[in-house]
C-alpha cells in the first residue's frame, strides 16, 4: 500500500459524513442520532457531519422497522450514495423489526433489502452507542475501499440500559430487551 492509499484510508476513517433516513421509525432513534451531534456528545470531533444530500454521504444511517412504503425510497437512496459507502442500522427496529414483528405493514428487517455493515442495538440506542457504531462503520469503509473485500456485518455491544421505559415502546420493555439480545446472539 503506497503513501497515497494510506492517506486516503486515514482520511476516510477521519471524515465520515452521514445521511440519515427514517424507515418508519417512532422518532426515538432519530432524536438520539441528533443528540449525538449536540454539545454533550459532539460527534464532530470524529469529523462526523450530517449531510443534506445522499450524494455527499459516506455512511447511510437508517432507523425504523422498514415499512412497505419506505422500501423503495431506501433502495433509491442507497443507490444515490456514491461508493465507497457503509450502512448503519440504528436501533433494534431495522435489525429485527422489534415490537412490530409480524406486522403486515412491514417489510423488514433492513438486511433483506440492502447490505448492512453495522447494527447498533437499543431501543433507542444511547448516543454513545451510535457514535461507536458510526466510528466502526467508518473503519469498515476504509478497510473495504482499500482491500475490496466483503466485510461481515458487525453487531455493536449494547451500551446503557436500552429504553429504560423512557422511549415510545415503554410498557413493552421486555420485548426491547429480547430484541437486543436476539441481535447480539
Amino acid at each position, binding site marked *: 500500500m503506497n503513501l497515497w492509499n494510506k*492517506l*486516503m484510508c*486515514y*482520511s*476516510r476513517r*477521519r*471524515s465520515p*459524513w452521514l445521511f440519515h433516513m427514517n424507515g418508519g421509525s417512532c422518532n426515538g432513534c432519530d432524536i438520539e442520532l441528533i443528540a449525538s451531534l*449536540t*454539545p454533550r456528545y*459532539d460527534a*464532530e*470531533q470524529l*469529523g462526523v457531519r450530517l*449531510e*443534506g*444530500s445522499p*450524494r*455527499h454521504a*459516506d455512511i447511510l444511517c437508517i432507523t425504523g422497522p422498514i415499512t412497505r412504503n419506505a422500501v423503495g425510497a431506501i433502495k433509491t437512496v442507497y443507490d*444515490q450514495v*456514491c*461508493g*465507497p459507502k457503509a450502512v448503519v442500522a440504528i436501533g433494534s427496529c431495522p435489525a429485527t423489526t422489534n415490537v412490530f414483528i409480524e406486522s403486515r405493514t412491514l417489510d423488514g428487517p433492513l438486511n433483506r433489502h440492502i447490505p448492512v455493515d453495522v447494527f447498533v442495538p437499543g431501543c433507542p440506542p444511547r448516543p454513545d452507542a451510535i457514535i461507536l457504531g458510526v466510528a466502526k462503520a467508518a473503519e469498515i469503509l476504509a478497510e473495504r*475501499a482499500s482491500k475490496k473485500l466483503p466485510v461481515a456485518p458487525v453487531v455493536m455491544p449494547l451500551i446503557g440500559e436500552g429504553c429504560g421505559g423512557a422511549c415510545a415502546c415503554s410498557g413493552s420493555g421486555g420485548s426491547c430487551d429480547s430484541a437486543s439480545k436476539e441481535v447480539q446472539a
Partner: protein
Amino acid sequence: MNMTTALARLLIFPGLLFAIPAAWFILWVERKAVALMQGRIGPPFMQPFFDFIKLLGKDTPPRDGIGGMLMKAWPLIAVSAAAGAVGLLPVLPSSGGFEGDLILLLALLEVPSMCIIAAGFSSRSIFGEIGSAREAVLSVSYNIVFLLAILSIAASQHTFSLETLAQLPASPLRWLGVLALLVCLPAKLHLNPFSLPNAEQEIYSGPMTEYAGPELAMWELSHGLEWVAATGLVATLAAPHVAFGWLAIFIFVAFSFGIVLLLSVVASATARLAIDTTVRFYWQVTLIFAVLAISSALLVRFRS
C-alpha cells in the same frame, strides 16, 4: 509586473501554494468557532484536509451529454476564478499591479457565485434549481451594495488600483465603505443570516445537491478560496500599510483571521432569514448607507 512575478503571485504567494492551506485553515476556523460558540469541542485541526482527500477518493455518478460535461466544468471554473482573485491581492508591498485590478478582482470574485447558479440549474435537481434561484436573487440584492461600497472607496481616493489603495492612508469615507463590504460578506460567503442558497436540511444542499466526490471537493475548495479572497480584500483595504515584507504578510494574515472570526461568530449567533427579509435588508437598510457613502465620496471629489 512581468510574466515571472505574475506567475509567482498566482502560484506561490498569495496564490495557490499559500491560498489552498489558508482556505482549509479558514474552513476549520469557521467550524471550530461555531463549535466553541455552541459549547462543543469541534473538529480536529486537519479536518478540512481530510474531507478534501476523502472526497477526491469517492466515486461520482455517471453523467453523459453536454449537461454532464457542464456539471464537471463549473467547479473547475469556480476554483480557477477564485484562485486568480486571491493572486491579485497586493499583500507584499510594491508587488506590482496595474490600474484597474480592483475591477478585475471584483469580476473574478463574482465568477464562483455565477458558477453556483449555473451548476444548480444544470444538475436538473429540483432542490438545485430552488437553490440557484435563491442564489441569483441574493447576488442581485447584495451586489448593488457591494459594488457601491467599492465604488465609493475608489472614487474617494481617485484610483482603481489595489496597490495604490493599500498604500494611501485610510480616510473616514473608506471606513464607511469597508463597513458596507463587511455587511455584504456573509451573503457572498453564504453564511448564516444569509445562508439561503445552500440552506442545509431545508432544500437538502441547494445547488450542490447532485454533486459528489471530486467535484464536491472542488466546490469546497472554491468556497475556501472565496473566503481567502473576500477577507483578503477587506484586510487589504482596512489594514495599515507597512513597508517590510514579513510584517506586511503578518498584518494581512492577522486581519484576515480577525474578519473570519467575526463572521463565524455572527454566523453561529444568528438564524437563517427568509428570502424576502434578506432582499429587504439589503435594498432598504444597507443600500441607504451605500448611496450615502458614494454620494459623499463624489461630493468630496468635486470640492477638491
